[in-house]
């Protein structure tokens, strides 16, 4: 019964990313694009910095040549508990989900002020600068559970809310609780190194709760008190020990 979620109590979903395990393979990025109907925007717009990925991997070098090592950090919406983006939206397109404790983006409400993206300290929101073409047969690849966004709308990672909701509804219909590990966002599912773990932070027995207790755990820009729900386990923890 670990990771249990009763019918009406709010849950607190979180993610732990182990930078020691991350190989920077970008499988999470590809999986996210496919799961969430993210547009492919072409060279022109990518070259001016408009890439649409909801999760992207950044590469950091440490040490001096020849003793260098590479650390990868997949960066996605940190699902702040105290989110700067939410208060800025004049039309309630950026809202907090009480039941899942996730920052939701309601595409149909968005009028495109882009204030939320300005105010996001992690710069993880992406904007639909255009309507990019989705030629046949790409349209067959669209995920029916996720809204297709049009130009002028802000979008971002929501921990694959459609998968969380499906797991919750399945569990409810079967008269049971959601099991730990039952919900896997696309990035978690695709990660070949098992570097990304997803689960409930409010369940002390869940895998994420156990990993958060790891001494290597940190959250990005913690000094801003945004209370992110994505934890990182520091990379390069064995630097100098594996040759």
């Amino acid at each position: 019964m670990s990771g249990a979620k009763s019918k009406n109590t709010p849950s607190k979903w979180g993610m732990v990313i182990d930078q020691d395990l991350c190989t920077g393979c970008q499988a999470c990025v590809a999986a996210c694009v496919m799961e969430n109907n993210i547009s492919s925007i072409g060279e022109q717009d990518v070259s001016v910095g408009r890439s649409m990925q909801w999760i992207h991997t950044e590469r950091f070098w440490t040490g001096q040549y020849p003793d260098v090592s590479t650390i990868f950090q997949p960066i996605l919406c940190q699902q702040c508990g105290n989110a700067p983006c939410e208060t800025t939206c004049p039309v309630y397109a950026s809202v907090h989900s009480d039941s899942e404790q996730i920052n939701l983006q309601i595409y149909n409400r968005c009028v495109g002020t882009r204030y939320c993206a300005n105010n996001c300290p992690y710069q993880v929101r992406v904007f639909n600068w255009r309507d990019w073409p989705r030629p046949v047969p790409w349209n067959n690849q669209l995920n029916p559970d996720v809204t297709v966004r049009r130009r002028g709308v802000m979008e971002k990672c929501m921990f694959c809310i459609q998968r969380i909701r499906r797991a919750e509804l399945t569990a409810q219909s079967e008269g049971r609780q959601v099991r730990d590990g039952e919900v896997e966002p696309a990035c978690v599912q695709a990660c070949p190194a098992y570097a990304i773990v997803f689960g409930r932070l409010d369940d002390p027995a869940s895998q994420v709760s156990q990993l958060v207790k790891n001494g290597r755990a940190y959250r990005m820009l913690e000094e801003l008190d945004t209370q992110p729900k994505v934890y990182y386990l520091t990379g390069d923890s064995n630097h100098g020990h594996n040759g």
Partner: protein
Amino acid sequence: MATTAESIAMPGASAKKPKDLHEHLMLDPRPRGEMNAMVMESMHTTSKKFWGVVVFLALTILFALLGAWGYMIAEGMGVTGLTRPEYWGIFIVDMVFWIGISHAGTFISALLRVMKYEIRRPFTRAAELMTTFGLIQAAICIFLHLGRVWLAYWLVPYPNGRAIWPNFHSPLMWDFMAITTYVIASTMYLFMPLIPDLAMARDRSTGWRLGLYRLISLGFTGKAAEWKFLKTAMNIFAFAIIPVMFSVHTVVSWDFAMSTRPGWNSTIFGPYFVIGALHSGIAAVMIVLFMIRSTMKNMKYFIRPEHFEFLGKLSLIISMAWAYFFFNDYLVPWYGGNKFEQLLLDFHSHGPFAWVWVSMLICNILIPWMILWNKKWRKTPWLMLVVGIVINIGMWIERFVIIPVSLTITRMPFTWRLYHPSIEIPLTIGTFALFMLLYLLASRLIPLVPVWEVQEGQSAHIVRKVGKAMVTSVSNVD
């Protein structure tokens, strides 16, 4: 006249006054009928050149504003230079700029009216009109900026099918409310002193103008009771609009100050923006007055070097205040030593946009201070036009530095990227053309000089001879 100690400045007696008093509009009276005729003539006079400029501006608006905007709506915001991390760019720069312009109009008019500064009389209308037309440009810039402008009405709080109210936690919502309040209040404030002049125009017009003025002068006939009500209402509005003007530009600054961005999250942004608005706005009044004086008939009588001299002095004080706020806004983060603010300040003064930052200081501080200290130069209209343009360039740059340049530095260094504006440039030109076109058309439709105020002021001024000196005294007519 010379036999009495007092000589009342009567119409026609002006020629006998010494030259130094003669240069003041208030001490150089003309008969009412003549002055009314002068203003009417200025409204009726149009040349081929005038219509040429109107057509040119209309074509500019058609292509640079409407055409480019239509293209942008159809294609998406991708045709702009905006990107991550500059989610806000020149549209917001323009919005703040136009709101700044619109501020000084009302500020000058209301403050000087409340303080009973006699010098205000001929140019209050020109300044107030700038407010209304500037706010139109600011509103257009907000709409230009929206990703889905066709849904802009979702910002309006009204019972709707979406069963949702706007988010009053958002500074953008405050901004929207503040600007709406300001548009309504400043338009009413423009309209009220206009009523007697519209009635004057109505009594001297025929044809379609008669119909128009009859409609908008609201049947004003100049009865004592009408004047009493009008003056009471104007007094209330003049007082009320001053705090409204301060609050509006403070709310505009909160769009930035309330955020978490380094360089934006500043407690001094409110007054800094208010002073910045006055700086650009007073400079814009100087430009507008120069244009009125040099292009419209009979306006050299009403708009005189003394008015440029006064505005120049005001501009110098505001420039010093702006320098103080700039220094304060720079020093505190510099001393504070926050890592990202340090990076940002360094980026301002040493980055690829350093030349922009330096020109801001030259335009806003150096050039105004070097010119405005000299009374003779302040009385030179063309020089004040130059200073006005320079200050406005400087203040536009100031907003450019605050918005896209500061947005370049985020807390995620791998997102840093320079801003390269594209379609924003024709759209900006379009808003300037629209402002000029509106002003041009209004100059031939409504009296740009509040004739009744000038007449009232002139009748209140008396020149007495005390010994050999000529002494001006003003009776309180308000």
